[in-house]
C-alpha cells in the first residue's frame, strides 16, 4: 500500500450484505465501530468489577472518565442536564475510543468519515430539537429571539440565530472529521517520507541520514494526534452539552 495517504480511509467489505439493492455490508468501518463499543464496555465494566471502596488504578480511570463527563455536563447544562448523562457519556466514549483506536497502525479510524460524524451530530441536534419542542412547545423558538434586542434589529438577529443553529450540525461534524482526516494524512505523509528516503538511490548516503527528519516529525505528530484525539472528543462533548443546555433553557 506504501505511500498513498488516502488508502487508510478506504472502506472494504468484510461480510457483504445487500438488502433491496442497498449495500449494508459489514465493513472494516463497522468492525471498528464494534471494536469501539467492545473496548468501551470492557474498559468500564471490567474496571468496576471489583466495586472497590478504595479504587484500583483501572477503576480510578473509569471513575475519572465518569466524573469528567459528569462535571462537563453539569457545568454547561446544570443539574437538569444530568438526564442526558448516559447519552453524553456514550458520545464522549464513542468518539474518544474511536479516535484512539485509529492511532494504532493499520487500524481504521471510524471518525475520519464525515457521514459518521455528521450522523452523530444530527443525533445531538435531533435530540435538542425534539426535547426542546416536547418540553417547551413553541417557547423553544424563543431560542432564536434573544432578549434585550432593540425592536428593529429583531428580524436580523433572529435570522443570524437561525443560521447559526442550522450550521451547528455541520460545524460539529466537520470539525471532528477534518481533524481526524488531516491528522492521519499528515502522519502518513511524513512517515511515508521516511520510507521513501531510505529506499531512494538518488540521494546515496544522504537518503538514510535525512530520513531522520521526517521520523522525528512523525514521532512528534503521533504525540500531537493523541492530544487531538482526546481534545476533539472533548470538544464534541462540550458542544453537545451546550446545545442540550439550549434545549433545557431556550430563553437566553
Amino acid at each position, binding site marked *: 500500500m506504501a505511500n498513498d495517504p488516502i488508502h487508510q480511509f*478506504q472502506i472494504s467489505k468484510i461480510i457483504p450484505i445487500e438488502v433491496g439493492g442497498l449495500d449494508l455490508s459489514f465493513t472494516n468501518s463497522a468492525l471498528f465501530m*464494534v471494536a469501539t*463499543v467492545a473496548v468501551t464496555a470492557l474498559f468500564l465494566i471490567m474496571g*468496576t468489577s471489583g466495586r472497590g471502596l478504595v479504587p484500583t488504578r483501572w477503576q480510578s480511570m473509569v*471513575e475519572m472518565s465518569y466524573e469528567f463527563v459528569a462535571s462537563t455536563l453539569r457545568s454547561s447544562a446544570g443539574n437538569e442536564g444530568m438526564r442526558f448523562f448516559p447519552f453524553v457519556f456514550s458520545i464522549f466514549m464513542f468518539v474518544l475510543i474511536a479516535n484512539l483506536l485509529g492511532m494504532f497502525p493499520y487500524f481504521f479510524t471510524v471518525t475520519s468519515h464525515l457521514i459518521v460524524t455528521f450522523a452523530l451530530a444530527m443525533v445531538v441536534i435531533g435530540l435538542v430539537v425534539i426535547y426542546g419542542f416536547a418540553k417547551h412547545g413553541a417557547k423553544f423558538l424563543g431560542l432564536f429571539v434573544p432578549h434585550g434586542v432593540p425592536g428593529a434589529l429583531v428580524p436580523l438577529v433572529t435570522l443570524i440565530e437561525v443560521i447559526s443553529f442550522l450550521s451547528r450540525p455541520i460545524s460539529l461534524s466537520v470539525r471532528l472529521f477534518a481533524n481526524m482526516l488531516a491528522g492521519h494524512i499528515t502522519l502518513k505523509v511524513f512517515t511515508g517520507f521516511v520510507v521513501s528516503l531510505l529506499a531512494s538511490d538518488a540521494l546515496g548516503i544522504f537518503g538514510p541520514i535525512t530520513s531522520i527528519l521526517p521520523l522525528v516529525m512523525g514521532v512528534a505528530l503521533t504525540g500531537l494526534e493523541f492530544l487531538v484525539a482526546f481534545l476533539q472528543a472533548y470538544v464534541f462533548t462540550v458542544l453537545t452539552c451546550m446545545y442540550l443546555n439550549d434545549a433545557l433553557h431556550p430563553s437566553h
Partner: protein
Amino acid sequence: MATTQAASETTGEHAAGTEVPHDAHASVGFPPFNSETFASQLLWLAITFGLLYWIMSKVALPRIAGILEDRRDRIAGDLAEANRLKQEGDAAVAAYEQALAEARNRAHGIAHDTREKLKAETEARRGEAEEGLSKKLSEAEARIGEIKSAALSQVSEIATDTTTTLVETLIGKAPTKTELSKAIDGAMK
C-alpha cells in the same frame, strides 16, 4: 459512481501516489465522500451506538454511580461517626471538668468549715481560760481586801491599846475611850 465529481476534486492530491491494487469498488476516489458506503456506515453506526448507549445506561453508568454513591455515603457516615465521637469526648471532658470543679468547691467548703470550727473551739477555750483567770483574780482581790480590812481593823485596836498603854505610862492615867478613838481616828486620816 455518484461521487465521481467529488472524487475528481481530490484525485489531484493523491494521483502522485503509487497505483495501489484496491478492492473491487475501492478506486472511486476520496473514500469519505464515497456515498456508496454511507448506508452501511449509518446502519452499523446506529447498531453499535445504540448498543453502546444501552450498555452505558443500563449497566456501566448505574454501576459506576453506585460505586461513587457508596463511597460518598461511607465517607459521610464515617464523618458523622467521627463527629459523634468527638461530641461524646467533649461531653466527657465537660463532665470531668464539672466534677473537678465540684470536688474543689467541696474541698474548699470542708477546709473552711474546719477552720471555722477550730477557731470557734479555740475562742471558746480561750474564753473559758480567761473567765477562770478573772474569777481567780477577783477571788484573790476579795481575799486581799478581806485581809486588808481585817488588818486595818486590827490596826486601830492595836493603836488604841498602844496609845492607852503609852498615855498611861506617860501621865499615869488611862485616857477615856472617846478621847482616844477621836485622837486615833484623827491620826489615821
